[in-house]
């Protein structure tokens, strides 16, 4: 939605002045509060603890060890010139191969990925936007189950001009997508004269921290086939599941059904190394598509978002190292599981229930009993209190378009164990105080 800014001299575009980037929402306002007063275990123990950033810092030591032991990843030797000149949007073959292998490994080797179907982008943010440009025209719609990652409003809608129509999910069935919810969303889009072009799911889900069940995936795929629309599966947290057997990729569903063209031609997977490998600074994302036209168009469009050839080289070395990747995936999973158990237990002792999650870098907390009124306003008031009094930045469900007020996403992997302990203490104290009132 464009907002007119007084321009005394020369004007800007609608994109530039629009608020679709969403950075004025509480999701981002909390980050600002953190930036202004960040917690530090030594120098600022009363600062704001950042629990609104889904970053994985629990396995840095493994990355560091690899880089120490493998200097050839950071240097090039005789290949430097070719690498420095390499700006081909196909991407380094060795890197695409390594990414395909890594994606296969995460899925326990149960599906194969073809490196020639991998399109590289500078992060999953770019991958999601790029796919939207490729699959939908301005003014078309994508159906997205709620609650969803707040960044989608910006990534899928801002420059593309595409609309998100929510598929409303409810706590009564753990926020799983139902056939009824899909149909409702589709009808709602139609009633607004919007052309639905696809469904975008996140599996494992952000902010729920839960993998999507097989039957739900099949239901969604059948719906996509029936309506002849696309299905984008953002599997960015696929390596962050606590138990490997609980994650089912849409790729496995396709495989189980025999890779029928009528199904595969509409399925696209988004992946990235920002969460599973804890490397968001590297800016590495991919679009994996079973549709040749999509691969071609996406690849050409990726000129606007190429990954540094230096980084591609480094990661090609790292991800081709079977010993490293095997150990990393296993150890990372174990550590995340432990962190998750710690926070869930800590919250339970404080009297807070979470959705029973099995993946991701966060928990989906139910604070609805604490709301002064069961409304969005009540939720935001509680969020503000927690930010200013408890000094924790957590993400309110309304930023994620959750239809039920009172749910909050709290991240647990972007801090040390000690900091997590401090955060839990603060929560415990806060809950204790509330009980006494």
């Amino acid at each position: 939605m464009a907002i007119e800014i007084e321009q005394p001299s020369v004007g800007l575009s609608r994109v530039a002045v629009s608020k679709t980037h969403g950075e004025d929402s509480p999701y981002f306002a909390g980050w600002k509060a953190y930036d202004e007063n960040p917690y530090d275990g030594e120098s600022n123990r009363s600062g704001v603890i950042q629990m609104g950033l889904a970053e994985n810092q629990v396995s840095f030591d493994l990355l560091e060890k690899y880089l120490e032991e493998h200097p050839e990843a950071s240097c090039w030797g005789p290949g430097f010139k070719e690498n420095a000149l390499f700006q081909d949007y196909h991407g380094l073959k060795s890197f695409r191969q390594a990414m395909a292998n890594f994606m296969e490994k995460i899925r326990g080797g149960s599906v194969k990925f073809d490196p020639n179907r991998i399109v590289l982008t500078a992060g999953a943010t770019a991958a999601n936007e790029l796919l939207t440009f490729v699959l939908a025209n301005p003014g078309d719609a994508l159906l997205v189950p709620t609650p969803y990652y707040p960044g989608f409003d910006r990534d899928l809608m801002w420059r593309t001009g595409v609309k998100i129509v929510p598929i409303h999910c409810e706590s009564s069935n753990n926020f799983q997508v139902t056939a009824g919810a899909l149909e409702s969303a589709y009808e709602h889009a139609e009633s607004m004269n919007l052309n639905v072009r696809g469904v975008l799911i996140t599996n494992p889900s952000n902010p729920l921290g839960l993998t999507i069940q097989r039957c739900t995936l099949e239901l969604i795929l059948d719906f996509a086939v029936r309506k002849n629309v696309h299905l984008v599966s953002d599997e960015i947290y696929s390596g962050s599941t606590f138990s490997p057997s609980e994650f089912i990729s849409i790729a496995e569903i396709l495989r189980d059904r025999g890779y029928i063209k009528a199904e595969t031609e509409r399925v696209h997977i988004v992946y990235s190394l920002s969460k599973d490998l804890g490397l968001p600074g590297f800016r590495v994302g991919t679009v994996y598509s079973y549709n040749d036209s999509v691969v071609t168009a996406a690849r050409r469009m990726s000129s606007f978002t190429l990954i540094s050839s230096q980084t591609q080289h480094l990661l090609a070395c790292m991800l081709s190292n079977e010993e490293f990747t095997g150990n990393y995936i296993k150890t990372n999973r174990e550590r995340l599981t432990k962190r998750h158990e710690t926070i869930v237990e800590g919250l339970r002792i404080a009297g807070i229930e979470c959705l029973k999650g099995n993946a991701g870098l966060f928990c989906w907390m139910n604070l609805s009993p604490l709301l002064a009124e069961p409304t969005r306003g009540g939720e935001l008031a509680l969020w503000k209190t927690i930010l200013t009094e408890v000094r924790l930045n957590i993400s309110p469900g309304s930023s994620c378009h959750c239809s039920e007020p009172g749910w909050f996403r709290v991240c647990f992997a972007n801090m040390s164990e000690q900091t997590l302990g401090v955060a839990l203490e603060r929560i415990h104290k806060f809950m204790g105080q509330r009980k006494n009132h």
Partner: protein
Amino acid sequence: MRLVVPLQGVVQGRGGLIFGSLIPCALFYFLQLYLKRHRSPNSRSNPPSPSASAQNLAELTRTSSRSNLLSRGSIVPVLISSLATSISKPNDSPYYIGLDKASEDPYDRIDNPDGVIQLGLSENRLCFDLIEKWMLENLKDSMRGREEGDLSISGIASYQPLDGTMELKMAMAGFMSRVMGGAVSFEPSQMVLTAGATPAIETLCFCLADHGNAFLVPTPYYPGFDRDMKWRTGVELIPVHCRNTDNFMLSISALNQAFNQTRKRGTKIRGILLSNPANPVGNLLSREMLCDLLYFAREKNIHIISDEIFAGSIYENEEFVSIADVVDSEDFDKSRVHIVYGLSKDLSLPGFRVGMIYSFNENVLAAARKLTRFSSISAPTQRLLVSILSDARFIEEYMATNKKRIRNMHDLFVAGLEGLGIRCADSSAGLYCWADMSKLILTYGEKGELELWEKLLHVAKINITPGSACHCIEPGWFRCCFTTLDKEDIPVVMERIRKLADTRAASRG
């Protein structure tokens, strides 16, 4: 007989003893049936593993209803966007066709002497030895963690500011200033870093113009602008023709005429897109012209984007004047001026994807900063560049050597062409020359030019860029990039052109 062996396998496998003997038989039979029915012609499909389980059985019974769904469902293939459809079409621009052909059959003096010589890519390969030497001596230290704060892996692994780290912005500010002769200083806080100049230009366009608006662009211009500025933004590029008689220098009257004509047909002009140094001609805009352009922009209330990506590739002793220098020294409205820069040309690192938007307009910077999330520079690369750009001694040596080597190649190449009767436009910068090959055209006009281009590519096996791909109004001009060559290759190029020219002269009688 066939069932006995797999039966044993099943009983000993994951199904375990629970399944007894009859159930595995039945399940395996159904499995065979399932496989027969769903054998896809696609070689990528791998059949499910033979460890039978109840779940497989459940799936098998669902099979028939799903195949009904599919046969009812999609006879019509699923649609992609109009944008995607137009992008996926085979490239019809000679610029891209030439690049593809040259990469399929690349010339190598020893391994492939009959290959296509690449003169269509403005890449600078003349000073890699210097960069390689620097890497050998400094890389390990620059990449490894040191004690000073956030230089360990966590320093580059975590989320960085999406518009670039302050360290890199400061290093880039210093580098740009040196590149542009030290006449102007750049403010790191006015920079937004992007993964290459390509997204920098597109992002600027998204900030300054709406779908359907237009930019005035002097011709001939870099063919990539048609992609970068138009594809996803929906913006139009209006050519402002420059001619050989003026040595392809822009004139305000031509600009004015184009502006008025465009406005008459109801299209809103949002700005002028300049390349300075110019690509493909290689000439520089004078201080006076820059002032005139700023007056013009103020009068029409439009923006100016100045793509200065070749600022460090000046080989003559002419002074380069950045538009930043002019707005600083005169009293112009800075809010309409934006510069695009990058390290692909001046530091020969196109693979690393380092570009920037430099603007004096806070609102543009605020919007651009948010947009860079879609095209941020990779953190390890940022760290490496901070090291290399901060090495003042190396940068000085590099720039001096680079200038010398470009000039040498330029002089040799241009002399070679002159020996064939081919004249080049006056230029003082860039990695290319702008050659007048109109004498070699059989029928004067765009068709004739393209015919010559095709013969040069397929017969003479040299990839050069025809002026029509650059929207040049006068046929016969070609851009030849000479910085991807070794000195020894120049006679080879000239010989091939001569052979073709002789053939054509002979056929003309």
